[in-house]
């Protein structure tokens, strides 16, 4: 079959595709509604079938027309509430629409295709589901008077249906010789045209008046028909193209019926008028139909674009097989609203103007003009890009809409109950992405239904609701589209997956050790791994999740998986909005530039030359770096790609070829070949110092995520992040999987785009997360994170005896001469700012050596018990801030609160308060003691995660006569508070704590009526303005520095004696 006008057919196919797109979900809703028929929706589906029927008649697509016609009849019965939709009926309707789609895909062969099965099923529906009384109507002749000579039949059912649908019934008589043959028409076209406008109830040639062969050939061949349509009597002549005397109105709908009911209002009448062209013309249709339809399309598709196009209009012979996939699989055209086209046209105009401006400026060397022009071009280009992007954007609902059907069918065949919840249908993405998403998403949805969600019995047994929940969600996040597929099924068992991977030889048992559960679950993406113990016919089709992943990779997407056994599984797919223009990081190696898609870039890091030795190491044959307690494999981009390396001599600026063989190498070739692990070989040169010292030796590393693992890529230089235009690679380079494409940079040079997964494969990158070393580093980092960050002032007592004093307690440090120290009245003092400053040394109380005679002295001034006191120490004095674990037992003695290892030396932490107290025991009595009204019963709850600080603070609060209840974190504190209730008169809490931090604790306390009046003091190492504000907002009354004993105690006393704080 051929068509005279391909364009018109394409147009029709595009329109049809649009109409078919939403039908599936509509039918499912109709099924759900059962007898509560949503007329609007049924009408919508009816209309679709109706216009397919009409359109196909124009093109002589008889099979399509017939099937659409029968489908329409069934929908008509539903619409007029003659039959109620149930799963069986909807099944047949769905199958019919599937078949229609298939016919459209093979439109050229459609007339030869077999549709009988569907016709029989539909016809069966029409009669078998009729209530008994209605069945009778089918056979009961209609009570209507036909014109004399009319040899036609009409049943009471036909009349009833016409009445319900608000249709008129006409009788018309054509003369085949005069009205058809002489008018150059074709009777089939005429009838098809009529079907597009309504229902031909009966038709036939009146054979009686023709006579026999012996008589003169009849001068007329009357063809009569009974026609039910909404077209009004005054317009019917135009449609039928007959003089009015040969048309007879037999029945009209009751007046209270809407003259033209919903199915055929606007959409019904308008196309009809167009299609009412004489059939002879339809053989060579002019452009008119499409132009005439433009305003209407504008109405139906006012948004930027609508998913529509001719299915396979370029290669109509190709079928894509699965009918359900057709709607997104084979679109070759895009519908664009006139509005967007206008915008594009305007912008094109702007661009021309800008070009003219630039040319003008260039010809007269007007630099300012050139600047202005280029700015304009920049602006217009951006807008143009956006506008064009809009034309390619389509709602993701185009893909999502098929899933209710998929889930419904799967749950039916599997005997499961599955509720599908879809969110974010309106999220728009590039057309190519939407098309590419179809297969992976279908697979994942099928997987979830098949393997994820359990049978109702199993679910009930597990205490879950019988119906499983499947959630499909799309949303925008950070310039990407995120699609989540989650179910509340049985989840993926990491052990099972791991065992399967090992048994299939995809992974060695050694590698498995140390792999986290999450990493094990992610093994489902390994090629060749299928978890289903028995491959089911539904999702197990020899295609695994690896195909899903590689499909998504191709789209520039990432997929992550989270699963909990018995709870469910969640897939998270992140995709760029478009593939045509992507933000990318530009890097350089030697003289070549490369683009790395931003979506794959996790972070950029630079390892200073001096730290290379510490942070880069070699495990097996892989080089790795440590990054915040994680081991990440690294690879040098130039090595993988085989680029000759050179380095620029920092002194001479001369280019020399690089001699280091691996990133970890720190010496020249001559010394690295010892066979030992790089960096460990001892040579005389090593003894001197690490030879990397110049800034140009720093390593620039891009941390890259492929979705399944991270690796570091060493490059020479970082440039900007740019929006690059992706150009496909030429045929000859297609086999190079390490490149995803190419782009042209601002200077006209070509930069290749790195395919991060391909590059990792080429570099045979290995997971290192499972190694022993990784576990060690992780443990180390975990230990570090548990340590306390403390600022201390370091000083010497004697050489080699390192001591420290918490910085918070230091007011000033003064360097003094030995002569300044005065001894009088048994007290050691010095003159300081016009008064006497009492001096103490550690050896006064603690069992340490006294400061040597020859040592340079310094005095650390602190305020203890409201007085200033000087701690006499030996130089040098240094301040550091470091994480340290404080040992409170080994070196504990009076005035030494504990020790820590700093710079490979033991540091004694001085407790200056205790020291002063011991030297001047009488000072304490000057302080107001906690002997007031509250008595000794005041219980203070102390929440602090660091053992050291908790011990310290507890000790000096207790020394004031308070009772202390301690908790190692906020959660524990809250539990304790609930237990102790009103016995607690004050809460002192640290801010940074595990499980529940101080701010949350404060909020929790304030949120509970029982503790509304409980004062809260926040403890912190260093409180900034912002922290204080945050704390106040959370309900903290006062902030105190952790080791500033005096102030903390003063605050305690003040708050307790005044009841509530607030004035703090």
């Amino acid at each position, binding site marked *: 079959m051929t068509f005279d006008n391909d364009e018109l057919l394409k147009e029709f196919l595009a329109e049809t595709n649009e109409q078919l797109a939403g039908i599936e979900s509509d039918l499912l809703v109709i099924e759900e509604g059962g007898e509560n028929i949503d007329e609007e929706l049924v009408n919508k589906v009816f209309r679709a079938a109706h216009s397919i029927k009409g359109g196909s008649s124009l093109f002589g697509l008889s099979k399509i027309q017939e099937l659409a016609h029968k489908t329409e009849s069934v929908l008509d019965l539903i619409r007029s509430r003659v039959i109620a939709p149930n799963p069986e009926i909807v099944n047949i309707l769905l199958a019919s629409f599937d078949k229609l789609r298939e016919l459209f895909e093979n439109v050229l062969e459609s007339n030869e295709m077999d549709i009988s099965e569907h016709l029989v099923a539909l016809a069966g529906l029409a009669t078998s589901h009729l209530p008994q009384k209605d069945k009778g109507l089918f056979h009961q002749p209609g009570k209507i008077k036909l014109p004399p000579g009319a040899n036609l039949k009409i049943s009471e059912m036909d009349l009833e249906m016409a009445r319900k649908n608000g249709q008129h019934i006409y009788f018309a008589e054509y003369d*085949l*010789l005069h009205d058809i*043959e002489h008018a150059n028409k074709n009777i*089939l076209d005429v009838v098809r045209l009529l079907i597009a406008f309504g229902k031909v109830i009966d038709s036939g*040639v009146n054979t009686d008046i023709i006579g*026999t*062969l012996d008589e003169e*050939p009849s001068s007329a061949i009357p063809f009569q028909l009974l026609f039910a349509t909404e077209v009004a009597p005054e317009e019917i002549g135009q449609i039928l193209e007959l003089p009015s005397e040969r048309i007879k109105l037999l029945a009209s709908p009751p007046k209270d019926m809407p003259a033209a009911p919903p199915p055929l209002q606007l959409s019904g009448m308008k196309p009809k008028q167009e299609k009412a062209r004489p059939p002879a013309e339809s053989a060579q249709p002019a452009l008119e139909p499409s132009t005439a339809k433009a305003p209407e399309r504008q109405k139906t598709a006012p948004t930027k674009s609508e998913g529509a196009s001719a299915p396979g209009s370029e290669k109509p012979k190709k079928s894509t097989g699965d009918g359900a996939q057709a709607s997104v699989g084979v679109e070759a055209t895009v519908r664009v609203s006139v509005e967007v086209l206008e915008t594009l046209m305007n912008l094109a105009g702007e661009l021309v103007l800008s070009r003219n401006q630039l040319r003008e400026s260039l010809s007269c060397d007007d630099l300012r003009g050139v600047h202005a022009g280029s700015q304009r071009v920049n602006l217009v280009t951006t807008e143009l890009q956006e506008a064009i992007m809009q034309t390619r954007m389509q709602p993701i609902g185009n893909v999502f809409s098929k899933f209710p059907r998929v889930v419904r069918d799967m749950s039916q065949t599997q005997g499961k109950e599955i509720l599908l919840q879809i969110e974010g249908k309106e999220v728009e993405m590039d057309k190519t992405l939407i098309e590419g998403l179809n297969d992976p998403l279908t697979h994942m949805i099928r997987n979830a239904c098949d393997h994820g969600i359990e049978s109702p019995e199993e679910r009930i047994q597990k205490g879950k609701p019988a119906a499983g929940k499947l959630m499909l969600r799309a949303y925008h996040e950070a310039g990407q589209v995120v699609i989540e597929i989650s179910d509340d099924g049985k989840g993926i068992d990491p052990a099972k997956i791991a065992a399967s991977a090992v048994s299939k030889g995809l992974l060695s048992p050694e590698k498995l050790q140390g792999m986290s559960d999450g990493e094990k679950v992610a093994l489902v993406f390994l090629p060749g791994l299928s978890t289903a113990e028995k491959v089911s016919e539904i999702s197990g089709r020899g295609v695994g999740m690896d195909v899903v992943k590689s499909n998504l990779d191709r789209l520039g997407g990432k997929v992550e998986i989270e699963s909990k056994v018995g709870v469910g599984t969640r897939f998270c797919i992140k995709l760029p909005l478009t593939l045509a223009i992507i933000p990318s990081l530009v890097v350089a190696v030697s003289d070549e530039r490369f683009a790395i898609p931003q979506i794959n870039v996790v972070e950029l890091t630079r390892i200073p030359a001096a730290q290379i030795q510490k942070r880069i190491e070699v495990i097996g044959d892989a080089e790795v770096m440590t990054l915040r307690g994680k081991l990440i494999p690294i690879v040098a981009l130039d090595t993988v790609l085989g680029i000759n390396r050179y380095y620029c001599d920092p002194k001479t600026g001369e280019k020399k070829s690089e001699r280091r063989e691996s990133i970890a190498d720190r010496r020249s070739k001559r010394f690295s070949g010892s066979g030992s692990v790089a960096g460990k070989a001892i040579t005389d040169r090593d003894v001197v110092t690490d030879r990397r010292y110049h800034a140009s030796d720093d390593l620039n590393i891009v941390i890259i995520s492929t979705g399944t693992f991270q690796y570091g890529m060493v490059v020479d230089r970082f440039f900007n992040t740019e929006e690059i235009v992706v150009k496909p690679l030429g045929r000859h380079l297609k086999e190079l999987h390490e490149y995803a494409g190419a782009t042209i940079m601002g200077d006209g040079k070509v930069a290749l785009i790195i395919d991060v997964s391909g590059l990792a494969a080429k570099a045979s990158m290995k997971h290192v997360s499972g190694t022993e070393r990784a576990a060690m580093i992780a443990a180390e980092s975990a230990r570090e994170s548990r340590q306390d960050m403390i600022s201390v002032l370091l000083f010497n007592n004697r050489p080699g005896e390192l001591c420290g004093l918490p910085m918070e307690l230091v007011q000033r440090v003064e360097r003094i001469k030995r002569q300044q120290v005065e001894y009088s009245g048994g007290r050691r003092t010095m003159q300081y700012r016009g008064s006497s400053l009492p001096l103490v040394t550690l050896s006064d109380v603690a069992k340490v050596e006294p400061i040597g005679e020859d040592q340079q002295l310094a005095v650390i001034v602190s305020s203890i018990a409201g007085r200033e006191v000087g701690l006499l120490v030996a130089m040098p004095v240094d301040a550091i801030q470091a994480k340290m674990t404080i040992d409170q037992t080994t070196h504990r003695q009076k005035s030494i609160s504990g020790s820590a290892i700093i710079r490979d030396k033991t540091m004694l932490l001085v407790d200056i308060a205790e020291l002063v107290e011991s030297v001047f025991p009488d000072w304490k009595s000057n302080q107001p003691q906690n002997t007031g009204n509250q008595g000794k019963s005041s219980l203070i709850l102390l929440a602090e995660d660091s053992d050291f600080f908790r011990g310290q603070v507890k000790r000096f609060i207790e020394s004031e006569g308070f009772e202390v209840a301690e908790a190692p974190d906020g959660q524990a504190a809250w539990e304790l508070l609930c237990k102790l209730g009103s016995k607690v008169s004050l809460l002192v809490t640290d801010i940074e704590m595990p499980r529940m931090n101080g701010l949350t604790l404060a909020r929790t306390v304030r949120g509970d009526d029982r503790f509304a009046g409980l004062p809260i003091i926040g403890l912190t190492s260093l409180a900034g303005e912002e922290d204080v504000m945050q704390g106040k907002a959370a309900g903290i009354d006062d902030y105190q520095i952790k080791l500033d004993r005096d102030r903390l105690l003063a605050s305690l006393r003040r708050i307790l004696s005044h009841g509530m704080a607030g004035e703090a």
Partner: protein
Amino acid sequence: MSPYSEKIEGTTCTITVEGDFTQGNTSGIRLAIAEAIKNGVTTVKIDMSETNHIDSPSIGILVATHNSLKAVDGKLVIDRVKPHIVELFSFLQLDKRFAVNPA
């Protein structure tokens, strides 16, 4: 001039239409069938395997043949009819008057 062939076996006359059934062969076929019926033929078979188009006057001939045969208790059979012509006959309800066998 008249692209059709005619074969008479007993009381059966088989007409094979060569090409379309239109003005070109209508009158010839009409005469041939009329003659055959006069000679005692009661079954007329028309082979339309090569026919893609049939015009209204030809439809008139078929109806007239049917009417003539009805008078002698004979029957008209149309064989190997292309789908779209089957469709046409069905619209005209001619398939209810005589046998229409699809190709």
